[in-house]
């Protein structure tokens, strides 16, 4: 989560600074040549420590994970796990045919999408509402951020308590004559999850939308006002184009974060999870740490990694976020 937001902040800053500057593609000969010069003498060796760290904490575990997904690794072979029997793609076959993996993928993706679809307008509305200075704006802005700074565990615990049968929410609804039924189990639990997720994650969209709004030049507002644009037209044709970048970034990070979110469903519903909220991370966790099928769960995790990587890759190609400084340039 913290890594997400950190990266997000950085990328946004990068993006906004690009938006503010004249486009680097502009045929500016001197700029090009200077860049070429600096490229030649770049001290690439300084990347070595970071590179080594990346290998140790990302590449090695990733390779180990892929290796594990080919092993019949369980509590009986855990102790000498490297010599566990190699069974090729059997784990993948089992994950896809004999486990609830596909159902879990469907639940994870659909819930993430639904939560995103609601949080984006909420975030924009929040950002637009606090864009112009008014008395107490700083306070409102801080209040907006509360769900975002609370640890996921706390959020889930509080909501779980409120959603207990016969607890606060039930008695509130009861007083207006609604018998809502079960929140933490059964079909409704899926919507409970989405509701809590929206509550917890909309400030993230709000933050990015706010950063997008800040980058709208004052002149643009003035120009559109002179042209007689009313608020909706101004919003639609002047402000929204500025928000496109930050918001697609928010969408991407939010989706990844929701799909990977373990704490929220785990604390809300516990394990074994009701089948309506047996999400991907929960399924992987139970397979690993309750049933001890490490090989199988590694295969599940690998499948989900691919699943996440495909849209991520397409998106990065499309918006070229991966090399924002030199659009189109390959080095």
């Amino acid at each position, binding site marked *: 989560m913290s*890594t*997400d937001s950190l*990266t*997000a902040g950085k*990328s946004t800053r990068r993006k906004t600074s690009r938006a503010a500057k004249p486009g680097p593609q502009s045929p500016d000969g001197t700029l090009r040549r200077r860049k070429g010069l600096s490229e030649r003498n770049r001290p690439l060796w300084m990347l070595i420590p970071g590179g080594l760290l*990346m290998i140790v*904490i*990302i590449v090695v*575990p*990733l390779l*180990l*994970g892929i290796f*594990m997904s080919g092993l019949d690794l*369980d*509590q*009986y072979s*855990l*102790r000498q*796990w490297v010599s566990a029997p190699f069974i090729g793609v059997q784990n993948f076959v089992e994950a896809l045919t004999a486990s609830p993996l596909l159902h879990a993928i469907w639940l994870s993706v659909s819930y993430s999408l639904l939560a995103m679809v609601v949080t984006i307008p909420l975030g924009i509305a929040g950002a637009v509402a606090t864009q112009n200075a008014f008395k107490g704006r700083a306070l409102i802005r801080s209040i907006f951020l509360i769900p975002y700074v609370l640890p996921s565990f706390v959020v889930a615990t509080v909501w779980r308590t409120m959603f*207990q*049968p*016969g*607890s606060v929410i039930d008695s509130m609804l009861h007083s207006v004559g609604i018998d809502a*039924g*079960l929140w*933490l*189990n*059964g*079909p409704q639990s899926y919507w409970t999850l989405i509701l809590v997720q929206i509550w917890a994650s909309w400030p993230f969209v709000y933050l990015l939308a706010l950063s997008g709004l800040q980058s709208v030049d004052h002149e643009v507002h003035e120009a559109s006002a002179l042209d007689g644009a009313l608020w909706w037209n101004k919003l639609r044709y002047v402000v929204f184009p500025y928000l496109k970048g930050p918001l697609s970034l928010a969408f*991407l*990070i939010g989706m*990844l974060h929701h799909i*990977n979110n*373990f704490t929220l469903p785990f604390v809300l519903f*516990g394990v*074994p*999870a*009701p*089948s309506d909220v047996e999400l991907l*991370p929960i399924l*992987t*966790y*139970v397979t*690993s*740490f*309750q*049933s*001890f099928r*490490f090989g199988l*769960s*590694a295969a599940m*995790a690998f499948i*989900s*990694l691919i699943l*996440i*990587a495909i849209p*991520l890759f397409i998106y990065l190609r499309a918006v070229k976020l991966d090399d924002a400084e030199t659009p189109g340039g390959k080095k």
Partner: protein
Amino acid sequence: MKFASSAKFAAVVLTAALALTACGGGSSSSGGSPGPVDGKGKKLSVLTGVNNQYSAQQKQWFTDIAAKFKAQTGADISFETFASANDELTRIQTSVVSGQGPDVYSLGTTFTPTAYATKAFVTLSDDDWKKVGGKDRFNPAALGISGPDAQHQAGIPFVSRPFVMAYNKDLLKAAGIDKPATSWDELAAQAKKMTDPATGTFGLATGYKDNFDPWKFIWAMSVQAGNPLVDGKTLKLDDPTVKKAYETYFGWLTKDKIVDPASIGWSNSNAVAAFASGKAGYLMMTTSSSLPTLDKSAVAGKYAYTAMPTTAPGQTSPQGDGANAASILSGDNVVVADYSKQKDLAFAYINLITSKDEQLNFQKIFGDLPANAEALKALDNPALKPVADTAAKSKATPFTGAWGDIQLALLNVVVQSIPDLSKGSVDDSALQARLKDAQSKGQASLDRASK
């Protein structure tokens, strides 16, 4: 961003493979013969469950035991605690893979078979047993889940925590019941007499959302009807006795209406609270560790413990080994890690904590019954008598590495039935389907265990 997703991926998959926590013992070779162990300058590392109920007392106990251990052996102890069963699992898996970590672990009894299956813990030889004070020091029943057979035992019994029920003497008397039920049918009938929804009083208090209780009911009623659940390499969850057990357990809520409808969201502690407020006739599936809580509550002096029924629903007497299945064999075992380089020191520590005096002291502070036979006999609190009797009538859950999965499958049937329970009836075909699912999952796990 890429970093974040891969890192999370790695964290999910590879907690087990990446040994992040390396702690514990200094390196020195073990001696080999019984007798006083010289542990000067050494440090024993012990992992045990955190006791949230009595956390201050637990810290004090750690200090006291460490001092006594130092006086005996000259070695220090560092205690580490885990907060939950999941926490413990992760620690064990990490240590098993990396071959380093605590020297001594405390394990719940039902988890012992799974731990045994990893072969990462010492199977005690006759010599080793002598080092912990001899096998005959322990209550024989408590050894029932130490290993697959008497020759292969890894778990050394530390405390017994048999499951019993508590009853409110006043409520029973008011309903004209002179003694607590000994069959599940009788229990339901008695509970019905005490139930009065108008005053919020219910015959039974139990939590359907608890992570452990539900499968214990199903296990008990099935075993008492003559179905041991695991028969060699065959799992028998598709047996009519199991279905009957679920129907009875669900029936308390849907048909008999003798439990609070809110209990579909309760865990065991909510049930204890309900009983403590005097609103329940029976508190099901509790242990002697509820004693200090109840003694400070509204029912202080008005309640007593007794063994749970041993006659299965619809039966007139216990079948098979049913009379000895008043509770699962429950409590804590301690195990010594196979990788430990100071096993003698570990055995000396276990010798200390399973001695009669220490066991009685532990009982006084925490309420758990001694596993030490002499200490168990020396208990003089009359309230604990029925609990101690139940300790002798406890039956071990099947000793297989697959038990964890079977337990999960049994629990899952209840979890998936909760929406039906809240609507007031569990559909027969739905229950059948859930049982079939549990059977196939559990059987698959059992097949892996016997491979």
